[in-house]
C-alpha cells in the first residue's frame, strides 16, 4: 500500500514497524502511553490460625492516608479475585506469620484458573519458623506470578495458606500491610 500524506494531517498506508528504530522516542508519545494503568493493593485485616483455601475473609483495599492506587482495581468474592480488564498482570503475595513456642512450616500459594473452575498453583512461598524469641517469632514469605489474562470472566486468582502447626498465626492488620497482595497491570495481552 502506498503511503499517503492526507490533507487532514494524517498519514495512511504505514505498516506496523514501518518507522526506523529511534524515530519515535518517549517525548514523542502521547501522554499516558506506556504508563502503568492499574495498581491495587489489598491486605488481611484480622489474624487467624489454621489453614484456609482460599483466603476469603477480612480483606480490605489498603486505606492508609498516604496509600495510592491506579485504575479501577480488583474485586473479590469468596476469596476469588477478578481482574478489571484483560492484560498482562503481575500478582504478588506477601504473608507474615508467627508462633510462640514450637517451630513450624508455613506455606502460601498463589493459584490461578483459566476456566473459572480448575485451579493450579502458580507460585509458592515456603517458610520455616525456628523459634528464636521467648515470645512470638515471625517470618514473612513472598511469591508472585505474571499472568496473561485474556478473559476477565474465566481468568482469576486466589490465595491458599497451610501450616504444619495449627497454632501458627497468619498476621493480619487493619493499619499496616502484614499479609497483603498487590495486582499490577504491566501491559496488554
Amino acid at each position: 500500500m502506498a503511503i499517503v500524506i492526507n490533507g487532514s494531517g494524517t498519514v495512511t498506508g504505514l505498516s506496523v514497524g514501518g518507522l526506523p528504530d529511534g524515530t519515535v522516542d518517549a517525548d514523542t508519545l502521547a501522554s499516558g502511553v506506556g504508563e502503568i494503568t492499574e495498581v491495587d493493593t489489598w491486605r488481611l485485616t484480622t489474624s487467624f490460625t489454621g489453614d484456609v483455601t482460599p483466603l476469603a475473609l477480612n480483606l480490605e483495599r489498603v486505606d492508609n492516608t498516604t496509600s495510592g492506587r491506579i485504575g479501577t482495581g480488583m474485586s473479590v468474592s469468596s476469596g476469588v479475585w477478578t481482574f478489571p480488564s484483560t492484560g498482562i498482570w503481575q500478582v504478588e503475595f506477601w504473608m507474615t506469620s508467627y508462633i510462640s513456642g514450637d517451630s513450624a512450616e508455613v506455606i502460601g500459594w498463589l493459584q490461578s484458573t483459566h476456566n473459572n473452575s480448575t485451579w493450579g498453583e502458580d507460585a509458592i512461598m515456603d517458610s520455616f519458623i525456628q523459634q528464636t524469641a521467648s515470645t512470638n517469632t515471625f517470618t514473612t514469605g513472598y511469591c508472585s506470578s505474571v499472568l496473561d489474562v485474556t478473559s476477565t470472566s474465566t481468568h482469576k486468582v486466589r490465595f491458599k495458606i497451610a501450616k504444619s502447626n495449627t497454632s501458627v498465626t497468619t498476621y493480619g492488620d487493619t493499619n499496616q500491610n502484614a499479609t497483603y497482595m498487590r495486582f499490577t497491570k504491566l501491559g496488554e495481552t
Partner: protein
Amino acid sequence: MTYTLQDYLLTLHTGQWFGFNGEHTYANLVIHSEDAKPTEQECTDGVASLQAEYDSQAYARTRKAKYDLLNQDEMRYDDVKNSTTTWVDAIDAIKAAHPKP
C-alpha cells in the same frame, strides 16, 4: 508483650471465624462462622488470663536470657578439671537475682 482481644480470640478456634469492622475492639467484632460469639466479659477475662500467664513467666524469660550468656559447657568442663564450682555459682546467682514469684 501486651495481649489484645484478637490474641484471645485466636486461642478459641482456627480459621477465619472472626473479623472486625474497623479497629479491633469488641464493639467491632463480627463472627463469620457458626461459632458462638464470646461475651465481652469472656473476652475481657480471656485477655487478662493470657496476660497473667505471660507476666508470671517473666522471671523464667529473664533467667533464660542470662543463662544464654554463659558458656556453660566450658564452665562445667573447667569445673571438673579444676575442682571448682563456677557453673553452679553462676546459675545460683542468676536464680537468686531473679527469683520465682
